[in-house]
């Protein structure tokens, strides 16, 4: 308690010093700000507004503990953080597909978790429809965490530390699923990645100078990839078939949710933010490098009934025409989307 108070006082003092230069009333500066609560100037309005689950330090810290707690899985050895590692933008390094309890493998690549407040649908097929209820999918999936809500709540309610922390935040007992899911969302809603070199460029901030090659890459991206990887979040949040296969028996993608034949082989257009950090690529993690991804778009695409119209070119095979120089410029630009501040933010790391 004493230590906590000391840290807080020290942080308050630091905040006071920092704020002192630009405000006359440093006393009102918060002693500790929940990360990711500010909407970056170059971002659109979020889908999941902070008013839906007002961030507080206690609730955020509780969500952080839960995110890294393997007791949320049946076997007690897989946490959310197992497949979502901060140093690779909360993707899973070295794993093509998700790796769950009892060494079971899923069928899809664990995606990067970032800017989740701007999304209305989650997972590669959009099956999860709210940031708060999204964790129910991996928690109950038999090849991921394979646990029941009932059992997790039993475990949490049997833990005096959790009992105390939940009661402090929510003021009621016992711990229920709403508290669990709201606390988890306090943490995942904080994953705002908006400090890449590209962001500094976009907001005309210091350090935001892009090289000639990077600028050419940005122009190319907007021209040739921007209809899907649109806007400042670099995704239009749609589902598209990008020509990976001729048929999709192993995973029908969006059709798994809608049941519509026109959605077979369509998967969520992922954001390109931090893309250099998050190999392997595609819903099944088949590509290891960005170079392989660009080669696929340039001349590796396969024809199928639901192939996205964006890739159809008159009189030639589907794809995006890209020269070797253009690929090099695109890869140079994609590096500028790496947000070192985000992946090194200690507030998002597992508490030691």
């Amino acid at each position, binding site marked *: 308690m004493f230590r906590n108070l000391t840290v807080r006082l020290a942080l308050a003092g630091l905040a006071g010093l920092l704020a002192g230069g630009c405000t006359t009333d440093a006393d009102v500066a918060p002693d500790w700000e929940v990360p990711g609560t500010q909407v970056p100037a170059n971002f659109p309005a979020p889908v999941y507004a902070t008013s839906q689950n007002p961030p507080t330090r206690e609730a955020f810290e509780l969500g952080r503990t839960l995110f890294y707690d393997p007791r949320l899985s049946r076997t007690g050895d897989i946490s959310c953080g197992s497949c979502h590692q901060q140093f690779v933008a909360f993707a899973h390094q070295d794993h093509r597909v998700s790796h769950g309890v009892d060494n079971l493998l899923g069928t899809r690549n664990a995606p990067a978790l970032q800017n989740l407040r701007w999304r209305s649908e989650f997972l590669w097929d959009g099956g999860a429809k709210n940031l708060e209820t999204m964790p129910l*999918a991996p928690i109950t999936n038999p090849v991921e965490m394979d646990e029941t809500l009932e059992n997790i709540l039993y475990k949490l309610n049997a833990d005096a530390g959790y009992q105390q922390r939940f009661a402090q935040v929510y003021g009621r007992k016992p711990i229920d699923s709403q508290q669990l899911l709201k606390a988890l969302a306090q943490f995942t809603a904080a994953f705002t990645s908006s400090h890449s070199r590209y962001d500094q460029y976009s907001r005309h901030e210091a350090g935001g100078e892009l090289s000639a090659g990077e600028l050419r890459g940005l122009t190319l991206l907007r021209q040739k990839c921007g209809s899907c990887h649109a806007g400042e979040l670099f995704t239009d949040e749609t589902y598209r078939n990008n020509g990976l296969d001729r048929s999709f028996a192993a995973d029908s993608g969006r059709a798994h949710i809608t049941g519509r034949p026109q959605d077979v082989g369509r998967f969520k257009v992922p954001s390109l933010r931090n893309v250099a950090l998050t190999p392997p690529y595609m819903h099944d993690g088949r590509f290891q490098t960005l170079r392989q991804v660009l080669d696929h778009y340039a001349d590796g695409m396969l024809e199928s009934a639901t192939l996205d119209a964006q890739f159809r070119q008159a009189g030639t095979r589907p794809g995006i025409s890209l020269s070797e120089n253009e690929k090099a410029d695109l890869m140079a630009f994609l590096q500028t989307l790496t947000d070192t501040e985000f992946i090194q933010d200690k507030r998002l790391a597992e508490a030691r």
Partner: protein
Amino acid sequence: MKFRLFTLACLSFLTVAFSACTDDADVTTPAAGTLDVEVDHLVGNVPLVLNTGTYTTSSGQQFTVSTFNYYLSNIKLRKADGTEYAEPESYHLLKQSDAVTKSFTLTNVPAGDYTALTFTIGVDSARNVSGAQTGALDPANGMFWTWNSGYIYTKLEGSSPQAGGNKQLLFHIGGFKKPNNTIRIVSPSLNGATIQIRKDRTPAVHLAADVLKMFTGPNPIDFSTLSNTMGGSNSVKVADNQAAGMFRVDHVHAN
């Protein structure tokens, strides 16, 4: 000092004005009352008994029921003049296995004579996507799909010798998106009765929910071809059957 006197004068005036208003209000503002809703689960004409009861569809197929849960939500009462009362936070999960859930009370219903009752079989689309819920809508109740999130509006499980494979019946009716929206809003007839809400009475509406009606109606269900549905177009068929008369008002007690 002058200011203070003026303030006091104003306050006194307001007090007088306010008292006058409240006197009037006592006469015109209707008192509130309560309404009990009780639901009996039937199969045709006989009470539903889980596991041991065996029943027969109109086409002669036998079945048993091991689970029967459903949501009844967004309850509204309407007077003859069209004024409506909507129960706030109106989500009720009824389970055959838990007698307590089969009756509930609407409180603070404005007094008056209500001539129509409307409710949703299922959960409105907004709550399907609204984030973590509690109470009847708590996903821990086992009525929430996690991989394609949204509520299961009706969950009927059981068995039938006519069903394929392992002879199981799994009817999980849910989904809120076109073309497979299974939310159904119904207004079963009060058969000429009125629900008279008064300050000192607790009338009761007795509803009957007939399981058999899930399998008859516009889309007769043949267990040999449909014994397992979890959303999608087959669930729409069952939802249409439910809307066509699964719920009826058995009687209204004035009490």
